[in-house]
């Protein structure tokens, strides 16, 4: 566990995921070219199926027959060909700077690769892309919604410039700032992809982020974990320090492994339930996973 003892450096520990630009291109090209369709369900002419009603849906599309027959609020969806903005939210808080021994890079580096690949795919389809950070250093400047080849360079530059930082446990406004920004920029039909470890966020963060899925927005929450976090491979007595919240725990790793894995599963389940209940998608990955597979899974979730 010597690598785990390394101090979290100021910059992103890119590891094997560098350079970001080339890596993102390779990932994007690995994903099926037609996976991203600018098809959104909403007002249109072609019927696109049913889904559960969520607060904020246009009541015009409420299916009354289903309500009478099943006593459930179901809305009808229609497909329309239009451009869809892709809003990328990358968690750059301090915990995302963690890189375990088995990981190819830090969690934020993995999230950056996935975000950049998604941006390239979207921009290639002519859809605008925006980028926002959850936490991060002062120079973690968001990228406004735009399209074109230059936008990809701006996204790459922003992702490369960010330095993990910030404590969501202490900075209670960190999440609010991102949500407010999203509410302003993500219009109906926009695709919002949140890449975060979901670990140190406030307790109500799951519900608040899931609310993004209202107003015709498509939300994909991607939980990015380090393999060390997913497996808890410690042995014997360990002293663990959280990167946010200043929690320090000394424990017998062998005795508490099952308890930890259970707690992590509960946390993940809570997020999954909250997100799915809003009609959004939830993807849980580790940084040891193949980024191509992860991006393809996200694209599939969006369709």
């Amino acid at each position, binding site marked *: *566990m*010597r*690598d*785990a*003892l390394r*101090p*979290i450096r100021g910059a992103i520990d890119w590891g094997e995921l560098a350079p970001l630009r080339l890596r993102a291109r390779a990932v994007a090209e690995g994903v099926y070219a037609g996976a991203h369709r600018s098809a959104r369900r909403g007002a249109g002419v072609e019927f696109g199926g049913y889904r559960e009603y969520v607060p904020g849906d246009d009541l015009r599309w409420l299916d009354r027959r289903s309500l009478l027959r099943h006593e459930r609020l179901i809305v009808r969806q229609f497909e329309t060909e239009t451009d869809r903005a892709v809003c990328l939210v990358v968690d750059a808080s301090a*915990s995302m700077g*963690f890189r375990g*021994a088995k990981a190819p890079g830090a969690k934020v580096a993995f999230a950056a690769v996935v975000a950049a690949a998604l941006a390239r795919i979207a921009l290639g389809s002519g859809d605008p892309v925006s980028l926002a950070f959850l936490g991060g250093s002062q120079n973690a400047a968001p990228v406004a919604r735009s399209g074109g080849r230059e936008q990809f360079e701006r996204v790459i530059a922003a992702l490369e410039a960010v330095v993990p930082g910030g404590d969501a446990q202490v900075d209670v406004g960190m999440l609010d700032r991102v949500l407010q920004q999203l509410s302003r920029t993500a219009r109906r039909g926009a695709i919002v992809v949140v890449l975060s*470890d979901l*670990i*140190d966020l406030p307790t109500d963060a799951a519900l608040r982020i899931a609310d993004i899925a209202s107003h015709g927005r498509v939300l994909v929450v991607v939980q990015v974990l*380090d393999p*060390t*976090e997913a497996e*808890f491979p410690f042995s*014997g*007595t*360990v*002293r*663990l*320090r*959280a*990167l*946010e*919240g200043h*929690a*320090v*725990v*000394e*424990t*017998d790793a062998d*005795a*508490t492994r099952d*308890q*930890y894995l259970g*707690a*992590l599963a509960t*946390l993940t389940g809570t997020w999954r339930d909250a997100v799915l209940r809003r009609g959004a998608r939830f993807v849980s990955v580790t940084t040891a996973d193949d980024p191509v597979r992860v991006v393809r899974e996200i694209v599939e979730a969006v369709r």
Partner: protein
Amino acid sequence: MTFLTGIALAVALLVVAPYLAHRLRRKRADEQPFPPARLVEPAPPKARRRSRLEDRALFATRSASVVALAVLGATPLVRCSRLSLQRSGGASVAMAIVLDDSMSMRAQVSRGKSRFARAREGARELLASARDGDAVAIVLAGAPARVALAATTDLGAARSAVDAMAESDRATALDDAIVLARGLVSSLPQVDRRIVVLSDLADGHPDAAPLGDSSGVPVWIALPELRGAMADCAVMRADRSGLRVRVALACGPGSTAAGRAVVVESAEGKELGRAQAPQGATAELAVVLPSDEARPARARLAGGDAISADDVAPVVGETPRSAIAVVADSTDEAVATGGAPIVEQALSALKVDVDIRPIPAFPERTEELAPYLGALLDDPPGLTPEQRHALGAFVEGGGLVLVALGPHAASAPLGASLEPVLGHAVGWLETPSGGADPASALGGFAESARSLANLDASRRAALAPEDASALEPMVKWTDGAPMIARRAVGRGEAWIVTLPFSVGASDFALRPAFLSLLDAWVRSARERAAPRRGEVGATWRFPGARTVAAEGPSGTMTTSREDGVVRLVPPLVGEYRVRVDGKDELRVAAPSARELDLRPRSVAPSAAGEGIGERRASVDVSGQVALLLLGLVSVELGLRLRSRRVEAT
């Protein structure tokens, strides 16, 4: 143990230091980042885990290092149980090792380890302490004492010689061995010379002079644990005669075979008969076989004693040749004796346990002589060519012939002679001497030859000078001419008496020496015909033999040749099948009775080792301990590296 040794060994108490260090090393676990730490419940480590040593291999290595360090500090004061040479001033040493390979060395010195094995181990230890420039010679003390390795500075050759040595059943010749050893080292340039005796000192003469006292070269009688009186009995011989197997037993002083059974077995190990051994240090008993068809192979003394090798002896059958052919003129003799010729009567009176068969004339065919141990010719009137051919083949093949020369021999008809016994004609002349010279008598005739001092004989057979010179006189006339003589012919012997046995020619047949002559001749004939039984280690000679091949208990044996005579030395008790010029014969090597006496000889005070500064010496094992310490340090480094890698993964 000196004060310094104690101090050095006290360092070993520091073995607790690694334990304390390992306990203290169990510091608090290193803090490491883990983002979801708040999901982990704190759990204090169990007390058992706290008290457990974290790295047992590392701890063991470090503890061993401390102990090795203490021993290193104590050396060379540590005494090791091994023989070594102490040298004065570091000069080279000339050492003769006398290694006893006699049968008594087969006794066990500890469980599963014989005295010989311990002695050989001691020889190896001595060689291990030798240095370049030291000269080493090795002498074996089994009879006859012999040089196993002449003095050499090649220590590798000495080690090889020691490794090649094996136990034997020989008797002990310690004095001869020490004399040999002294001769080997006394002429060497090394100033520091010594003889090291590795023996149980049981040579059958416990009351003899102390060993190691008279030698000019200092003698060290090492390994006192080899010495000690033990009880031992042996089967000396086992002969079959008809349905009986006669077994001779012998025991060492103070021991008896009474109560132990003697079992006669077949070659397959099947018991054919048994009998209880009687009381006494020596005993002879008979074991009855179930039938004539029984084929006994060995007689075994049941029960255990000090040496098991001598508890078994091969059963040998008596020779089918058990008769003596007597060719005498019965018509002339009958007048004087009123019955059988005097020589026949004398042989009968001796009860020589062989058949006496008078035959009218010497056989002309070799096959007709097959049943006879020997042939006695009293005043033969020469032999025809056919008879001479048969006689020659008989004697060449190991037969014994006794020819008493008289007036008939001197007047042999044309074409008749006594070849191959005598090559020239014999005369019957007046004797210038009145009798035998007792001083010239050899062997068994020393006493009885006096009875021949004043013979009533006017004439005697006169031999040609060539024949006389070829004979070995056993008794001479007072004028130096042979009266009783013998000569080897092939593998047999021809005995000549220059007087006939007829009482008409002389009163030789009436003298006690006549019976002694017949007794010695018959005994010699039996020994030649019967399976030869000799003491183990005694040399068997085969005069006249061209090729000799032997198969003994240890396999094919090698023969040597000395003065043109093939020699064979049986090293082990048992039967030997010897093929002499294509003819098979059986020989038996019997144990030496002296080897049953396991009482050791006394040792001269100067030979105990103290006087010449040699004994179980302190051995500097610093080098070995230092190497061990170095190895332990290397192991510790390896363990620490491995530990780091484990932590890294």
